[in-house]
Every structure is written in C-alpha cells, then in structure tokens.
C-alpha cells in the first residue's frame, strides 16, 4: 500500500536549488541590497586581490634602494613618491597588503581554532573544566588588548611569526566566550539529545552537531577580528615590535615616515595611513552586513 503524501514539495512547481548555491545567492542578495555592505565587500575584495596579486600590480622591488630617486614626491613614475632610500612607496604599500593579509588570516585562523575548541569543550562539558578554561580566558581578557600585545611581543621578540602568535593569543579568548555561550544554548536543543541518542560520543555531538550551528555569529566576529589583526600588526610594527625593516609594513612605514613630517614629505606617512584606514573600514562595514546575512529573522 502506498500512503498518500501529506504535504511535500514534489510537484509544487518550486525550482529546487542545492544548499550551497542557495546560500550564496542569499548572501549576494543581502550584500547587494545594502550599498554600505556592498562598499565594504568591494574594499575587502580589493584588499584581498591586491594582496594576492601584489608582485603583478607593483613591478618595482619594494626593498630595492635607489639613492638617486630619494624623497621624490608623487609623480607619474612613482605614484606615491619615494622614501629616503629611493624605494617606491606604492610598491611598498602593495606588498605590505600581501603581508598584512597573510598575518590577518593566519592569526585569526589560529585564534578561531584554539578559541572555538576551548569554548566548545567548556560549554558542553561544564563543571570544573568550564570553570578552569573560562577563568584562564578571563585572565587574558582582563588586560587591555594592545598593552598585552605589546608585552607579549616584547617578550617574544620582533618578527612576523611572533606577531601572528601574539594576535592569536589576544583574540582566542573572544572566540572562547562566544562559542561557550552558543554551545550552552545549543546543547539544550532537541537535536543535541537526538544526536546523543543515536550513539554520538560527547566530542561527536559537540564538533559535528553543535558547532556548525554556532557558526553564524562567529563569522561576524571573524570579519571584525580580521580588521583588528591588521590594526594590531600595524600598531606593533609602528612601535618597532612587529615586522622588521626593511620588509614593508604599513605601521612601520608610518613610523619611518613621521620623521619627515616637518619637512612636508606627507606622502611617506599619508598613503600607508590611508591604506590602513580604508582596509579597516571595509572590514567593519562588511562585518555589519554579514550580521544581516546570518540573522535568521531575515531568512526566507
């Protein structure tokens, strides 16, 4: 005997799309709908593109010294001018985008992985484990982030790898707190119980069933944290605790440039400053827009 179908999509005329493509369609719709989000999206895309294609965009070697061209103001040959060693500022900014993109992605990725694991375990298992892990993250959160970053960077020593560790270290607790809260509410949902009933171990329930349901607010946080990571990397480099010269980095370019401020060589610090400003703004605008994409109340 075949039962009649109570209700079902078969034959209701709706074209069905696979999940991912639907998701992308919707994301694109939200980004397009809000011009501010679109602006953020364009800036971030541009930043990523510049980072990836740096050697193709700026053909000049960013660290090649050419004393003959020292301290040229912006002109057709050197769009953003040259510094006191005759290095092309445009080329240095473009290559710095590549370095900053790398620092931002790796440090946020590291913070995300560590923080999420800590928060998920603390939230799901609760009790002493929760108390221990959360008090440890509280210790990190108790310090002003940049002061802590400076202290840790000073202890580890300057260098690109150390910047990544430092930024990851100060950001991981943010994810831990966020994920813990999300897991605490997700673990009480019926599907968590159903997952336990079908023989999933504790770790299986947490990482396969609960965590994917907690991702939306995390992704908004990721977009925000990417901009903080860039800001921190630039800040640390500015005070000499970050990327070591002669490697180009926006923060260290500004700090080298300020000594020429009085003599009116504005292009030395203005262009790297603008690069930081525009990139951070782009990430923040995008993060606001992403919140809309993931807000379930706006879903169809």
């Amino acid at each position, binding site marked *: 005997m075949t*039962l009649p179908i109570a209700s*079902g*999509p078969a034959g209701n005329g709706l074209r069905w799309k696979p999940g991912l493509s639907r998701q992308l369609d919707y994301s694109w719709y939200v980004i397009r709908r809000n011009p501010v989000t679109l602006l953020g999206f364009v800036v971030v895309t541009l930043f990523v593109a510049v980072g990836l294609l740096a050697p193709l965009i700026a053909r000049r070697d960013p660290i090649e010294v050419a004393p003959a061209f020292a301290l040229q103001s912006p002109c057709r040959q050197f769009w953003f001018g040259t510094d006191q060693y005759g290095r092309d500022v445009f080329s240095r900014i473009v290559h710095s985008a590549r370095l900053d993109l790398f620092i931002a992605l790796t440090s946020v990725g590291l913070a995300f992985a560590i923080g999420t694991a800590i928060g998920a375990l603390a939230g799901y298992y609760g009790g002493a484990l929760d108390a221990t892990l959360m008090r440890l993250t509280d210790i990190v959160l108790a310090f002003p982030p940049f002061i802590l970053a400076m202290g840790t960077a000073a202890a580890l020593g300057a260098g690109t790898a150390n910047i990544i560790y430092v930024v990851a270290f100060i950001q991981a607790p943010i994810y831990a707190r966020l994920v813990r809260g999300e897991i605490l509410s997700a673990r009480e*949902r019926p599907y968590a119980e159903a997952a336990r*009933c*079908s*023989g999933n171990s504790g770790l299986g329930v947490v990482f396969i069933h609960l965590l994917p*349901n907690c*991702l939306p607010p995390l992704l908004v946080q990721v977009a925000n944290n990417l901009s903080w990571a860039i800001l921190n990397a630039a800040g640390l480099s500015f005070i000499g605790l970050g990327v070591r010269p002669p490697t180009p980095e926006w923060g260290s370019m500004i700090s080298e440039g300020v000594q020429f401020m009085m003599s009116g060589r504005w292009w030395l610090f203005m262009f790297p400053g603008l690069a930081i400003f525009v990139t951070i703004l782009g990430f923040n605008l995008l993060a606001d827009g992403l919140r809309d994409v993931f807000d379930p109340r706006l879903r169809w």
Partner: protein
Amino acid sequence: MEPLLDIRGLRTYFFLRHAVVKAVNDVHLSVFPGEMVGLVGETGSGKSVTALSVLRLIQPPGRVISGEIIFQGRNLLALSEAEMNNSVRGRAITMIFQNPRSCLNPVLTAGTQIARVYQTHCGGTTRQARERALEFLRLVQIPDPESVFNRYPHQLSGGMCQRVMIAMALICEPALVIADEATTGLDVTVQDQILTLMRELRNKTHTAQLFITHDLGVVAETCDRVLVMYSGRIVEAGAVNEVYARPLHPYTSALLNSVPDLRKDSRPRSIPGEVPDPRNLPPGCPFHPRCDRCTDICRVQEPILVSRGGSRQVACHASVQTEE
C-alpha cells in the same frame, strides 16, 4: 520467550536543591521481540524519563538510583559509555521524538544525517551509506527520495521530517525502537499515516516498538500490549483489548472514561483532582486522593504490581480485594 528488554525495579530520581523528584519509582516492564507496546500516562508520569533511562541519557541532576535494565541479555546500566555508544544507542535501540523538525540538525541535510548514523554504526563507504539512506527513505514512503536527501529539515514538512527520523531510526536494523510521543506534534491525517507506516514496518522488519504517548487512541490503534503509568509507577499492564474492555485499575478506567466518545451522548468525564506534586507524593497509593474506590489501606500502604492471570498485571488494593 525471553523478553528483549526487561526493566526491573528501575528508579530514576532528580536531585533538586530542596527536593527529590522521584520521576521513575520502581518500574517493572518488559518488551518482547517484535512486539508493539504502548506506554501511556499523563504529562509528568515518568514515561520519557523511563525511555531516557534505558538509553542512559539522564542528565544531572537526574540519576538512575537502582534497578536493572536487561537488554538482549546484558545489563545496560553496567555497560561503559563507549559500549553504549557503539552497540546500543542508535544501533540496537533507537529513538523517535516529538517535534521531528527540531530533532533534526538544522545545518545538515536530511540525507547526510541518515547516512551518518549508518556509517557510524555499520561502517561502509559514503556511497554505500548514501544508497542505503535512499533505500530507507523509499521504505518510509517518501516520494522523490533523491531530492529529499539533499534538503535541510526546514525545507521539509513535519510529516516528512518524522519519516526522515523513522528512516534514521531503522537504518541500522535495531531490535527496539522507542517512539516518544512520535505523533503528538502532527495533525491527525499525518498521524494516521505515520502510525500505519510504523505498523507496516513492524510487520516487515520485526522490530519491537515501545510507544510512549498520552493518546489512548494511538495505543488502541497500534499496540499489542499497553502499560499504564502514574506518578512514576506502572499501575496496570495487559493486552490492549483486554485492558480497554475491562480495566482493573481505577486510574485506567478513569482515563478511558475521559476520552470523548462520539457514539454515546455523554460528555467525557475528567478525573477529579490533580496529578500529585512529584516532589511531595502522597503516602500509600499515589492515586488515592483522586480515587473513588479508595479504602483505608490505600492511604498507608503502596500497592505493588501483581499478576492477574495471563499478561495482566495491576497495582491496586481495591482491585485485588474485589477479586478475593
């Protein structure tokens, strides 16, 4: 015949700050292979806690205090957590819940979830699991299984979600399926389809089913045997037609009288009084404050479940006395 599941003297208590809730208090029940057993009772009578105790999924502050749960010759309460996960939960005993939509993981497609259960317990490649999941979607009479496989729970109707849950519950060919209010959230036509489906599946696969419900009609329609629960105890047990025709426990007859009957002109009669506060149970028989056959002994001594010939059992002083 050996029972498939034999619960002896199960007690599950919840230890609250100021009180102890005896949610399941000395429950004895058995389910035989291929049998459909109904477990009925009001909200808070301990039906679901009994089911969760069987799977050892009682969360603190709850705890199984004593008793034995013998399943296929093994005491489930003595198994390790890993053994429970590998050979019992989702494998030999599976569960179907109320609100099927919220019991499915919202971020995984229906098919992925079914296939995952199969791969976890029975191994096999992703492709084999997919084939098997499609086969079971067909078994639970889902039209166009290929397309349902790739949909998310929110894209399916409640009835479809319940069929997906049933497919998931059956894919490893368990010996026992526990359906906890499996049809409660569905409208009656879908409810009827699901019940018919469950009965057909029993005839095909010979899987024993424990139906937890507060709907006497559901039990009458699907089950071979019925157990009536009240305040954490089994108060009456027996074959469905016998119990419905001649209830022995006053609570069972009161329950049956409270079901509206369109053939008679009388209004359904409600049971006077309220379900006792589980933190503060009355002494003696927990039903005595609401019982019209209450005697002195009922107020002081708790009746035990005694056999009354065949499969029938009852826990009531009054009923035993009338017999004598």
